[in-house]
């Protein structure tokens, strides 16, 4: 199971970083999402992997799983979900406004950038 989880984190991270290095917003946002999935699994694994063990005290049970990483993962999931929604909205706004979804700024955009864009 360690191998499975570790390689899942690794593949997700690799895919996420590859997509993040693309030039257009959609692949970059996908890459960010993959990275957040990877980090969620990683956080989950940081409390040691155990199967079928309860996180809270019960009578007659010896092995427990660490409940804290689960709480951390929940927080991380909520935050990354919200952040992804925000970035999708801003990216959509930028795309609809300038009809161009490149992440980098081209020279003419940079020149136009100093003018007040309001």
């Amino acid at each position, binding site marked *: 199971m360690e191998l499975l989880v570790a390689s899942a984190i690794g593949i997700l991270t690799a895919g996420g970083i590859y997509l993040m290095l693309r030039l257009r917003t959609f692949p970059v946002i996908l890459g960010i999402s993959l*990275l957040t999935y990877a980090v969620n699994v990683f956080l989950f*694994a*940081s409390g040691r992997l155990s199967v079928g063990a309860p996180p809270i005290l019960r009578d007659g049970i010896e092995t427990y799983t660490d409940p804290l990483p689960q709480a*951390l993962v929940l927080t991380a999931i909520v935050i*990354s979900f919200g*952040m992804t929604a925000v*970035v999708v909205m*801003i990216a959509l706004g930028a795309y609809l406004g300038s009809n161009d979804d490149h*992440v980098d700024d081209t020279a003419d955009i940079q020149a136009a950038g100093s*003018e007040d864009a309001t």
Partner: protein
Amino acid sequence: MTHWIIAPVILPALLAPFIVLAARYHIGIQRVFSVAGVLALIAIALGLAWQASDGTITLYQLGDWAAPFGIVLVADRLSTLMVLLTAVLALFVLLYAIGSEWDNRGRHFHALFQFQLMGIMGAFLTGDLFNLFVFFEVLLIASYGLMIHSGGNARLRAGVQYVLFNLLGSTLFLFALGAIYAEAGTLNMADLAQRVRLIDGTETVGVRLAAVLLLLVFAIKAAVLPLHFWLPSSYAEAPAPVAALFAIMTKVGAYAIIRVYTMVFSPDLDVTAGLHTTWLLPAALASLAIGMIGILAARHLDRLVAFAVIGSMGMVMVAISLFTPTSISAARYYTVHSTLAAAALFLIVDLVKTGRADLSLIAQPVIPGAALTSALFFAAAIAMAGLPPLSGFVGKLLVLDAAFTTTSAAWVWAIILISSLIAVVGFSRAGSVLFWKAKAMPVVEDPEQEEDVLPPATLSYVAVGGLLALLVAHTVFAGPATRYMTAISNQLFNPEPYIATVLDTPGKLSTPKEGY
């Protein structure tokens, strides 16, 4: 019970929804409540700073849960100073936003502003690493909204870059936290400080990795080279008051580095030995140099100021990475100076912008209110470049003095002095093009356009003047200020009272001391 510590977090957190829900369409009510909230924040921050000034460390256990299990807020000298600085900066930024009508150019400026304050205050006060992450996210998500306030294509595009870069930073932060938790089993800073010392010397890979990842995350926030790429375009495109408030956000990164790397991964710890001198110092020197060269190379005034921010952050980071008590207190002094000076400069950029077609550094006809604006620019540029008589000079002197006894003194002195010269040249070029060459330009042909342009409002000048007055006060009272900064670094380099306060204060679940 010391409930006051949570007040700087709670007050904006309650005020912001109130502004959104109850005063949505009434900009006047929003302004009144926002200013009143910030004034109350200043009063609270003054009280907290007074409480902490004699060295007492006060603790707030959320839900009365004891430290390693519950989340704690801790107010010591450093965090209360940063809280006070944030509150004071917020007041002047808010006054400027009201005076220049920036808050009325889009919805929800005041609500987002309060949420941003909540995040910054929380990040300064928390004693828990995961809680630090959460407050980072609070301040970031508010800053995304503020960054694209009043819209526009260039701003939205810069906003996308800013958000994506910070999302990557947050992901790295989570990786670092996961690694720390896997190694040490705790995320409370005081608890962590004790536990990393127990880690066996042969099994330090995970902790080293976590320490470096965490440093990377904070370096992204502090815009240290080579992680500074997000800063110039986002700060230049952000609305002026927002950019001025962002001046404190890079300092959150610097604060986190000081906090975590004095207490948890301190320089005497074998596990992370050499991290500061080998990696952080060269990066800080490089960002100082790049920032100052950027001042000279910038073709637009807003980019120039953004590079000045990178340069001054480089200076703060140089002082931090020397990691001696004197250098940390120099870093604190310079942080206060650099926050105020950068905010003043961003506001002045906006003053210059009224009446000019754009901010490119070529001569254009005289702007309305040029006399006062140019005087303010002159003062702020002197402060930022670190010339006497303003506090930039004192701060730079303190950093140089702190570096004098270290082994890397030659490098630090050379780069600080040469980069200061470059900054002086860059600022004087910008100032002379903006204000002096403008006199030589012919008056604009079409007079009807000239009538539309009004000089900036008095309140705007009051806000900028207030920031500069604070800089002057920071210079005049440099003696007491440096004594206080020395007290701060003494407290930082003796973290035992902090750790004892956090871990030994009784609360729920606090009794079983032996059974982790």
